[in-house]
């Protein structure tokens, strides 16, 4: 067992990293004086991983959309009971989520930490599906998909991804569609399970009121030694250009909502983290609440305080998104492109760079108050094969020159998609 203490001088914080003989990466962060413990057990398997091969299946296979999320729902069911009813005996609050590139099972508790951890490690390693239990889930997941159909914030985002990407499966809803989930059966679920839920592809992360030795003792007892299946994932080649420049849908809302995305070339590992941080600086400099651009559009009533921006990235995709409500979303897009071109020519605001750095750093320090935030940071770091302190250190060391280069590189004003949700005009009916 490889074990090391990872310490950060800047904050005085530390955690323990362990490479378990089974292949699992384990992160443990003891938070002195806290009552809460937050634990995450996750696999690097999300909605985008629909094409893969293993040693047993040397040819690439493509599985139905939404299967990672479906699997998450089904793992929550043991052979003889629901996993919630196991946690009920420890008092832990448990949940699970599937994102584009990961599936995580989690609990948060104040007592009976090790009993809860035993439940977590056991059920995730113990799949049980039959054709009947798989079929039953279709009703519940169908309802979940329908619920998101009504959610304008969700629709505006996915419509933008659909416009932006030609091939990459990030354009598909995480839960899939009513049609795609109808193709899912027990055999497919097992196939995906054994490919992605191998401990070499997984991370365990625990933060809070926790004893390291007890955690490792449980891991030794419960982690199963399986062969590494030699998992390999693949994506269809994705062009640099966007698929559609504009996508419009009508829903029952009050003010039009928009997402404007700038598509960029994805990077991986540490480089992707650096790209995300530097791009976040660019977004703040361009259009945060203190920017000249924001004030101008806000004062003219073109945007309101719902306006915000973020970096969205993962395996094979990277884009910067501006979103909010506006009575004229296309004008917001034109103004944004104008502002980006102006900044490329005249340069970004150097004076504000130092202020933004302090502000970004402050937000990361605030996260250190919270067991959930820490556990999440560690599992993300584990899946990217970086240190949990890499983000804080990168932010502290970023230079204005790095950020200026990033503006050139990451904001091609040709590769833009705007997604708009317009209110239904009831008078037309």
């Amino acid at each position, binding site marked *: 067992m490889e074990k090391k203490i990872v310490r950060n001088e800047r904050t005085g914080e530390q955690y323990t990293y362990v490479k378990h003989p089974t292949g699992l990466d384990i992160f443990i962060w003891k938070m002195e004086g806290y*009552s809460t413990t937050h634990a995450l057990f996750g696999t690097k398997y999300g909605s985008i991983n629909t094409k893969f091969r293993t040693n047993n299946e040397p040819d690439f296979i493509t599985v139905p959309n939404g299967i990672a999320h479906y699997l998450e729902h089904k793992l929550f069911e043991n052979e003889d009971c629901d996993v919630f009813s196991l946690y009920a005996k420890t008092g832990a*609050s448990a949940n699970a989520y599937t994102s584009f590139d990961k599936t995580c099972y989690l609990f948060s508790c*104040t007592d009976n930490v090790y009993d809860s951890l035993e439940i977590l490690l056991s059920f995730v390693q113990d799949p049980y599906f039959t054709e009947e239990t798989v079929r039953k889930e279709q009703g519940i997941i169908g309802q979940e998909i329908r619920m998101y159909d009504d959610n304008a914030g969700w629709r505006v985002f996915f419509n933008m991804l659909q416009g932006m990407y030609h091939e990459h499966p990030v354009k598909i809803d995480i839960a899939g569609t009513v049609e795609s989930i109808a193709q899912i059966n027990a055999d497919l679920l097992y196939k995906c399970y054994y490919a992605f839920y191998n401990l070499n592809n997984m991370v365990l992360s625990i933060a809070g009121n926790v004893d390291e030795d007890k955690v490792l003792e449980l891991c030794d007892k419960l982690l199963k030694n399986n062969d590494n299946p030699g998992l390999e994932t693949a994506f269809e080649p994705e062009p640099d250009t966007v698929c559609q420049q504009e996508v419009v849908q009508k*829903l*029952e*809302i009050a003010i039009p909502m928009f997402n404007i995305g700038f598509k960029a070339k994805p990077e991986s590992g540490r480089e992707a983290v650096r790209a995300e941080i530097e791009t976040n600086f660019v977004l703040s400099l361009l259009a945060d609440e203190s920017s000249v651009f924001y*004030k101008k559009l806000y004062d003219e009533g073109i945007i309101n305080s719902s306006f915000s921006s973020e970096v969205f990235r993962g395996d094979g995709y990277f884009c910067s998104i501006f979103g909010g409500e506006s009575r004229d979303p296309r004008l917001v897009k034109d103004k944004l492109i104008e502002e980006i071109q102006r900044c490329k020519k005249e340069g970004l605001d150097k004076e504000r760079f130092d202020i933004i750095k302090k502000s970004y750093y*402050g937000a990361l320090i605030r996260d250190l108050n919270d067991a959930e935030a820490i556990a999440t940071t560690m599992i993300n770091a584990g899946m990217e094969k970086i240190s949990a302190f890499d983000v804080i250190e990168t932010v502290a060391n970023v230079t204005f020159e790095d950020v200026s280069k990033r503006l050139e590189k990451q904001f091609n004003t040709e590769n833009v998609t705007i997604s708009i949700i317009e209110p239904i005009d009831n008078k037309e009916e």
Partner: protein
Amino acid sequence: MAVIYNREKIGEGINFTSLINKRQKTNTIMIHLLTPLSSETASVNALIPYVLCGSSREYPTITILNKKLSELYGAVIKGSVSKMGDSQALSLMAGCINNRYTFNNEKITEEMTKILAGCLVDPNISGNGFESKDFELKKQELLDDIDAEINDKRAYAFKRANMNIFRNEPASISIKGDREHAENITAVSAYEQYKELLKTSQIEIFFVGAEYSNSCKDILSEAFAKIDRSYSGDNHSDISPLKDEICRVTEAHDVAQSKMVMAFKTDHNNIITMKLMNAVFGATPISKLFMNVREKLSLCYYCSSGFNEKKGVLYVDSGVEHSNIEKAENEIINQLEAMKNGDFSDEEIENARLAIINSWKGVGDGARSIADWYFNQCYSGRSDPPEKNIENIMKVTRNDIIEAAKSLRLDTVYVLTGKGDTE
């Protein structure tokens, strides 16, 4: 590690509560102005915190204010408005990292407190009202927010349900008021109402940090000392009366999934017993509603209950296919009958009890959660720490839970459904 609680009066109807915990890496200040809900003032009251947190006389625009806050390591000042039973709480929240985490040991907490005090008692005024340009933008946002309530169908259904559940009570008023009143607000009328609130509302301040801060208390005491107070008295909520007949309302909108809100009323006076009953019935993923209505029968994507202790109302909130509405309603009633008949195991009680205790034990870990806990306590005239509630919930028996369930009467069924779905 326990939180050290200390509450002191710093003015007429103004209290400063400090919640100290060594491991806090941030300092947080919440200032709440509590006032009775009324349809005349709900909208203007909802607007005021947002106007205040965007500027002050010293930092007259959002750009200047934000620049200053960013220099303080991304300190934040936020306004919000919330409903507590029949009262409305207007809140300003400020937060920053502890001075010891700054690059050069800067005193940012004191600076942030001064800025917050400025936003609250020394706003950006022109003539007899708030500075009009910024005010008009904030007003437009309030109107947009009121219009946008329909975007989130679950919240919208809940709002519409409340209007029926609390008919003729202050609690029926939407937290942001209504469009008609909002449209008529002017920079001058809002400023007048603001002055009235500073004068008459109950003001509760919470400071959460690693150590007690005399300087923050002094900055705030000094700021409030300039105000000529005539505190109008306490805020309270009344238990909602049961209607003579069950109120049934169905409304049609463009939705794919229908929403149903059922309300049961009670005059049971033991809140902790009601909370435990609610947890067994529908508030956890092992509750009767989740296990039966969602899991066993696949009738809903979500179906859960919540208890409004200030109004004595238990809600059941669900998302259902239109064709299943009646089935879902019947099944929810069946599950409540099961509770009344004592048809639940000791294990279900202990599991629910454990889940609640687990969440109460974690309250002290978050700045926001501990401040909200004591704000709720002081609204009800108490100052019990979470540990005290834990002690009390340990004493609740099976019979207590059955009695609590028996006290519930169906009052309202509200359904939001698709346009093609209404018969």
